[in-house]
């Protein structure tokens, strides 16, 4: 099975840029007081209002952008098999009756020959079990096991 090399640079660039902009937003909020163009105890001047009204949304939106890039990074890592694929409860229920989907959930880089053989064997046994549950005759399942064994030998 071919594995996709995850390239994380683009996600890291997006996350770094978002963090930098978040810091810029924080500075925008602090600047009127740090640079003292907002007189102490007086009403806010228009520069202060503008800086705060811009700085707070900038900081919040930068955090949102960071979240988007982080989610994309997690998705890429999952697609590459580095992180475990999140299983839904329904998918887990179906996995008991559909053994072929279980093979796709195994992380690709971790698949050695032994893993593949064991996965094939487990899939054949699960197919046999589900065929019996569905009232199929035993010949069908025997044939599937024989086919798998023949494929492995070939």
């Amino acid at each position, binding site marked *: *099975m*071919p594995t*996709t*090399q995850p*390239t994380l*640079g*683009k996600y890291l*660039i*997006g996350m770094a*840029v*978002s963090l*930098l*902009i978040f810091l*810029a937003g924080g*500075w*925008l909020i602090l*600047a*009127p007081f740090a*640079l003292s*163009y907002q007189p102490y105890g007086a009403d806010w*001047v*228009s*520069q202060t209002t*503008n*800086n705060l009204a*811009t700085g707070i*949304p*900038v900081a919040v*939106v*930068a955090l*949102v*952008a960071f979240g*988007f*890039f982080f989610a*994309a990074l997690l998705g890429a890592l999952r697609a590459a098999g580095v992180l475990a694929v999140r299983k839904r409860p329904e998918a887990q229920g179906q996995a008991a009756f559909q053994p072929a989907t279980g093979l796709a959930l195994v992380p690709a880089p971790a698949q050695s020959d032994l893993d593949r053989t064991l996965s094939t064997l487990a899939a054949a046994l699960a197919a046999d079990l589900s065929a019996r549950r569905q009232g199929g005759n035993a010949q069908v399942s025997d044939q599937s096991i024989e086919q798998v064994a023949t494929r492995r030998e070939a």
Partner: protein
Amino acid sequence: MSVGNAMRRLVPPGSLVLFLLFLTGIWLAISPFAMTTQPSGQPWIASTINTVALGGVLMIVSLLGIVGYMALGLRDLPREAQARQEADQETTSS
């Protein structure tokens, strides 16, 4: 891969948000003059310098983020297409 799919991969939601921040940078850079907090013909006051500088930083950094993501995404597209072709060939041969 369709053109729409490729564009979606090159311009993710994060990049759209960065574009929003780019527009915010433009506003920051022009706001002292638009709101006339900077006296005309006078040397720039501290708030003008700060706001214009931050606006410039915001514009440059957000553009860098958008373009950097797009460039690296463009570099990855052929690689992924090649991996997909190899996977298809392996599937058809086995």
